[in-house]
């Protein structure tokens, strides 16, 4: 593992930001103040951060409906995201996207996406653009176990190999496509097993373990940057909340989430490892927790006090130019 102290602190901060953001959105959604559909990423933080720690602003990612974590990991500003989720004019997308469409192309974040499996084709295009521009960029598509079954994903795996694109496809298998178990809906034991059929390496990794994800991601990204082509990586992990906020999750086992939280929560595993190995101190982690809590608190206050769009905003930005 080649992470220095600053990088370790950065990784922990990002994961904590995602967790605190999602926990808070969960609480705020319950008050009825947040409109629309919200899908939370809590529990899966090690995946987004483990990959995005390797990336710069030139690199692109495409996310899913469960996109907040990927946004934060890729460097999208938290205040803007919270405002967006509240439908405010100063949100990342001016209040026109909402939770399911947060994007920030300047940060290389090509959007959360309301369509399951829509990201992989777009990421083939981002990889193609990087190849033509010869900027060494890579492009990563995150999909869920549900998205892994979409034709768009399978077509993209094929195209990425045929065109030898600098793309990585990450299947975040949290066990459920909405309420349907991936043990039932995925035709093979591991989603990553499908890589063989598309002529690329396939890797399964424990998505609760940041260090394992970081390592696997690093190898795939390095290979892609060097022209070695795409990789399919499956992160096996768990989501702590429902498919969407309001999901009673009656399809899940008794104490299922509780057991995961107690045994393999990604933040817990990370803290344990870095403190036991003397890489970071508990005091350093506690300080980050405190700072992040204040940051999230401020983002909510900022969002709630921000103005909503006006009627003048309805018809802007449909086109670059239209008579």
């Amino acid at each position, binding site marked *: 593992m080649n992470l220095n102290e600053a990088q370790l602190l950065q990784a922990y901060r990002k994961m904590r930001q995602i967790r605190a953001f999602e926990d808070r959105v969960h609480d705020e959604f319950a008050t009825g103040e947040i409109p629309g559909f919200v899908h939370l990423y809590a529990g899966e933080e090690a995946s987004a951060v483990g990959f995005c720690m390797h990336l710069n602003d030139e690199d*692109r990612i495409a996310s899913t409906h469960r996109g907040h974590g990927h946004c934060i990991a890729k460097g999208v500003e938290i205040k803007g995201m919270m405002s967006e989720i509240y439908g405010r004019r100063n949100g990342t997308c001016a209040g026109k996207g909402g939770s399911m469409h947060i994007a920030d192309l300047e940060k290389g974040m090509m959007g959360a*996406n309301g369509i399951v499996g*829509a990201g992989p084709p777009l990421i083939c295009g981002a990889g193609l653009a990087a190849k033509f*521009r010869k900027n060494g960029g890579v492009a990563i598509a995150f999909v869920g176990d549900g998205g892994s079954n979409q034709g768009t994903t399978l077509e993209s795996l094929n195209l990425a190999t045929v065109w030898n694109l600098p793309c990585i496809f990450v299947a975040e298998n949290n066990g459920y496509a909405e309420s349907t178990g991936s043990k039932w809906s995925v035709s093979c034991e591991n989603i990553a097993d499908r890589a063989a059929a598309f002529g690329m390496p396939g890797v399964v990794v424990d998505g609760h373990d940041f260090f394992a994800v970081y390592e696997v991601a690093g190898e795939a990204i390095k290979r892609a940057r060097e022209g070695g082509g795409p990789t399919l990586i499956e992160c096996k992990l768990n989501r702590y909340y429902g498919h969407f906020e309001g999901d009673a999750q009656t399809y899940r086992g008794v104490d299922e989430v509780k057991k995961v939280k107690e045994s393999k929560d990604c933040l817990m595993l990370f803290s344990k490892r870095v403190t036991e190995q003397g890489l970071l101190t508990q005091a350093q982690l506690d300080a980050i927790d405190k700072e992040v809590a204040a940051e999230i608190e401020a983002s909510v206050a900022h969002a709630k006090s921000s103005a909503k769009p006006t009627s003048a905003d309805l018809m802007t*930005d449909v086109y670059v130019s*239209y008579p």
Partner: protein
Amino acid sequence: MARELTFKDAINEALAQEMARDETVIAMGEDNVGGMGAEGEIDAWGGVLGVTKGLHAQVGDRIMDTPITESAFIGAAAGAAACGMRPVAELMFIDFMGVCFDQIFNQAAKFKYMFGGKAETPLVVRTMIGAGLRAASQHSQCLYPVFTHIPGLKVVIPSNPYDAKGLMIQSIRDNDPVIFCEHKSLYGLKGDVPEGSYAIPFNEANVVREGGDVTVVAMGMMVHKAMEAASALAKEGIQCEVIDPRTTSPLDLETIIESVENTGRLVVVDESNPRCSMAADISAQVTEQAFGSLRGPVKMVTAPHCPPPFSDVLEDLYIPSPEKIAEAVRALK
């Protein structure tokens, strides 16, 4: 001396000139080059009907073959457009939109709006439309009304070689996603095309023939059917003003309404099926905005509400004919 080119070669020349001018312009599609992975010659096809033939020799790898995987490569073109390229992706037949439409209407068309204005998607989707080649139900439709319906998309339907070149150049330079509809029956049509580069702005209808009695709006192949009808009607003393909108989104309604204010009569000819068609759309808009100028009902001449048939007898009945157009015009006089 004017130089003649076919509709097909005019599009080819537009692509070649834009690709030479701007290296972010790339082209992709099934068999756009042809012969990849085979033992014979490269550029074997240059597109299924040869529209992109010869480009590979000029631009090399910037024109790419794709597997038959419309969702992946149309989506890749959208993604590349959002990352600073100007892709021209060929959806071989518009009928194939069914296997890739999400990437067009939920992705490319919506990036700018959903992302709060902070995205540009300069994507061109070239696609073949239209009946007449006995290609049956899944290779003969005119589905441009479906694309016209979607905010965020622009839709272009050239009817002659001059317009095909100028509108293609504009489509490539435009910063919004454009659906460029090429009527397959027009590929062999010859016409004057300047050698130099020129762009025809969107939202500028072309008054193809002036006349004071009846306004006839038609697009794509239907412009030629309307012109045939207009010639026949002129012999009967009926003067048609034939207007080719050239783009259905944006739509130059102003030119159409100005004409209707003069003629008081409107026939809209559209090769697509009638329900929610361009004919229905233009009729509704003119009725709403210029009702006072109309001296009779707006007439729609469209394909019937059935899929394009295979047998020549049936397909000939399906396609709006000059006779049917003339009949509609006469009914208004």
